[in-house]
């Protein structure tokens, strides 16, 4: 619970209906889509205006209490997990598309706007917003900015970072920062790059301007079936090496193909050990040329099946299997745990092999559906949450996958963010001086550390304990010795 004083302050500034204090009202907010760790928020505020956001920031700053900002709650790493002694600021009611500028090819929206709503608003001008996380119907752009969300089309069009041109941010001190804008460059430090992916720890974004692109004239999808996962992995590198940057390049392993087929019967080759889906978009001439080239590469890597979809209906059918993979996994096991490691493309084959070995060791099934072109893995660990051993096994299995990703030159998260889920692995990926530098950056905006505490950046003490070194009050013993 939060203090009476803080609550009084909130009531003084906000309408009563915007403040939720009863347990039954707060329960729907106890986690985002990372449901492993839940917490009941101290109080929930459903902001209806930027003025409300300002008020919440002021109260949290003056009362020195935690503030967690949340959009649609579709995040997969627990970035929006509430704090029991703090305010959960929900921005989903701030969902207006403020402007679509067809000349500048930009849209300016409020943070609660869903990802898909931007493309829908831009459609009449023949434009679209490229990053498309799987949850795009529901996820809000504010959350996309907080996590630097990706999606199927990042390979060609980039992540959220590459597609956001401007942000308006309120800091906990009450300053409004207008970052970037409609020009191609600005003076000063690139605070915009710092804000994107900062997991709600540096400020609250109240307005977002994104880049829009012309909707491609033509779109083809090529499906390749392979008898060997490793060869399919190598084919991904082969396509890139052939000088083609596909709109999307996705891979599904045997189990994922089977699950998708049982769920939606889209006509994937059931006996394939791996399936690649390669989307090629652009002008007619461009797509014709790149389609031929990719098909040749698939042949050279001994694809057992190659299927080409050229009309929108066929393309949708081929994509459907990929899209239903996650719900289909839900039919293979009562629970699944989705990982998000990112690795160099040339490691795809060997890493999938290593994951398969771990799967045998933990005696837990694993299904792989992922953004192969980006080297962004999404192993789905299948388990039964009601079985304590399986639950713990799944967590350990997941942690081991992430450690393996770091070992082969990758990273613990490609697009889902660290949140609470991967906070311990941050200590494996970064040295203490690096973690310390993150904290100093955090202090630039939030010296009292009330913005989304306990997320994304582990304390030095936590890392040292994991590394077996004791840190007292954040002080490293014998700081003059170099250790890292």
């Amino acid at each position, binding site marked *: 619970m939060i203090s009476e004083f803080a609550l009084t302050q909130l009531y003084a500034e906000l309408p009563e209906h915007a403040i939720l204090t009863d347990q039954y009202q707060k329960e729907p907010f106890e986690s985002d889509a990372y449901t492993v760790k839940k917490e009941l928020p101290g109080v929930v505020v459903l902001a209806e205006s930027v003025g409300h956001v300002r008020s919440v920031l002021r109260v949290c700053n003056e009362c020195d209490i935690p503030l967690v900002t949340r959009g649609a709650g579709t995040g997969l790493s627990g970035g929006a997990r509430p704090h029991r002694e703090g305010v959960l600021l929900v921005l989903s009611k701030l969902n207006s598309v403020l402007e679509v500028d067809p000349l500048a090819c930009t849209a300016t929206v409020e943070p609660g706007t869903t990802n898909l709503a931007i493309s829908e608003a831009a459609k009449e001008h023949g434009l679209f917003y490229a990053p498309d996380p799987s949850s795009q119907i529901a996820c809000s752009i504010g959350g996309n900015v907080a996590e630097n969300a990706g999606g199927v089309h990042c390979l060609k069009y980039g992540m959220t970072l590459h597609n956001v041109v401007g942000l308006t941010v309120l800091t906990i001190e009450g300053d409004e920062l207008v970052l970037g804008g409609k020009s191609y460059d600005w003076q000063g430090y*690139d*605070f915009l790059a710092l804000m994107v992916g900062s997991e709600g720890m540096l400020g609250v974004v109240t307005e977002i301007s994104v880049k829009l692109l012309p909707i491609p004239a033509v779109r083809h999808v090529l499906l390749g079936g392979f008898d060997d996962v490793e060869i399919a992995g190598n084919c991904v590198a082969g396509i890139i090496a052939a000088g083609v940057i596909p709109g999307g390049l996705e891979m599904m392993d045997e189990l994922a193909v089977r699950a998708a087929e049982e769920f939606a019967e889209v006509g994937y080759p059931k006996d394939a050990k791996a399936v690649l889906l390669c989307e090629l978009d652009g002008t007619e001439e461009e797509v014709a040329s790149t389609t031929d080239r990719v098909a040749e590469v698939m042949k050279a890597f001994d694809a057992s099946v190659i299927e080409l979809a050229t009309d929108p209906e066929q393309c949708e059918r081929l994509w459907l299997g990929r899209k239903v993979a996650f719900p289909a996994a839900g039919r293979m096991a009562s629970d699944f745990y989705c990982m998000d490691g990112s690795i160099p493309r040339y490691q795809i084959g060997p890493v999938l092999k290593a994951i398969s070995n771990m799967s045998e060791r933990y005696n837990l099934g694993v299904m792989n559906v992922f953004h192969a072109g980006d080297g962004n893995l999404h192993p789905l660990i299948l388990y039964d949450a009601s079985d304590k051993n399986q639950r713990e096994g799944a967590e350990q299995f997941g942690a081991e996958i992430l450690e393996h990703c770091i070992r082969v030159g990758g990273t613990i998260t490609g697009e889902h963010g660290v949140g609470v889920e991967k906070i311990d692995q941050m200590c494996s990926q970064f040295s203490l001086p690096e973690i310390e530098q993150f904290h100093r950056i955090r202090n630039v905006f939030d010296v009292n550390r009330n913005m989304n505490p306990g997320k994304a950046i582990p304390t030095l003490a936590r890392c040292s304990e994991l590394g077996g070194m004791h840190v007292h009050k954040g002080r490293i013993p014998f700081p003059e010795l170099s250790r890292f």
Partner: protein
Amino acid sequence: MTNDSSQLQEAVNAALEQKQPLRITGDGSKSFLYTGDTTVPLLATSDHKGVIEYRPEELVITVRAGTKLSELREITAEHGQMWACDPPLFDGRGTVGGAISSGWCGPGRPWYGTVRDSLLGVEMINGYGDPLRFGGKVIKNVAGFDVSRVLAGSQGTLGVLLSASLKLLPVPEHTRSIATSVSSQESTSLISQYTKRTSTLSGTCYFDGMLYLRFTGVAAAVDHDMQAFEANEEIDPQFWQKLRDHTLPFFADDKALWRVSLSRSSLFHGEDSNELEEFLVEWNGCLLWCKTQNSKFPTISMKPHAIRGFRNIKHETSRSTKYAHRLKHAFDPHKIFNPGVVL
């Protein structure tokens, strides 16, 4: 190929110990842009050079900061790849470290993105003397704050850049460029025909009544987009390198040169005002270079997003914002890197 990181580390440690600020430089190709204290000793990263790792199939190269841009271009071109943000070489001495610190991009900026967009990871020394690594060698990476990208354009104020991993792109199969004599209004409407749809347009430049366009991509697509210009003169693609490196005749005098960033919706290609007798516009009408007499501040009808004195202008002193000041302090509390440079 040399690894000079231990010397650079020692130099930073010594600077910290003696409280002696340093001016970080690569090979000095952009030294005319430096606005800080010029009396402090130089710390040159130009000997810390060479490729650390290059895997063409990954489209990623990791190079030391002192590597020459010209060398990077040669190495990547051997594999049909390029660093697409295409930073200027100026006199040919430009280094990767300098390109990142200045954040400067070539004529393809609106289509290929910025230096920061293609920066995947860095290795650096901060103002505490700590060697640090941020980001990585993979395309997607959201672990921790995006420190590498903040270094782009930070003008060496946050630390010494040691190496960087850069995302590369395949060199387009085909490039064709044309020049056509049109009015400023016509040039605006011509360009917008291509920006409204997926096209192969990847460079625009307008000055002296001539519009220059570049088309890149697969041959059939480029040829299709060029159909409207069958009657026009095709030009040597070297034009774009000259534009990038400021070796076009437009840049060859001692007048005050300003760099003006305009809104993406401005589609600026000139105006009636006599104030702007000599100007050049690139980036779809969003980047304006203009010359003025006696260092006079340029006046244009459109509200610019940023105006920067570029050459032969006595730099006006500006003040850092509260947060810029704090960010500098977070990396370099003893102010040993590039003192006097304000961002």
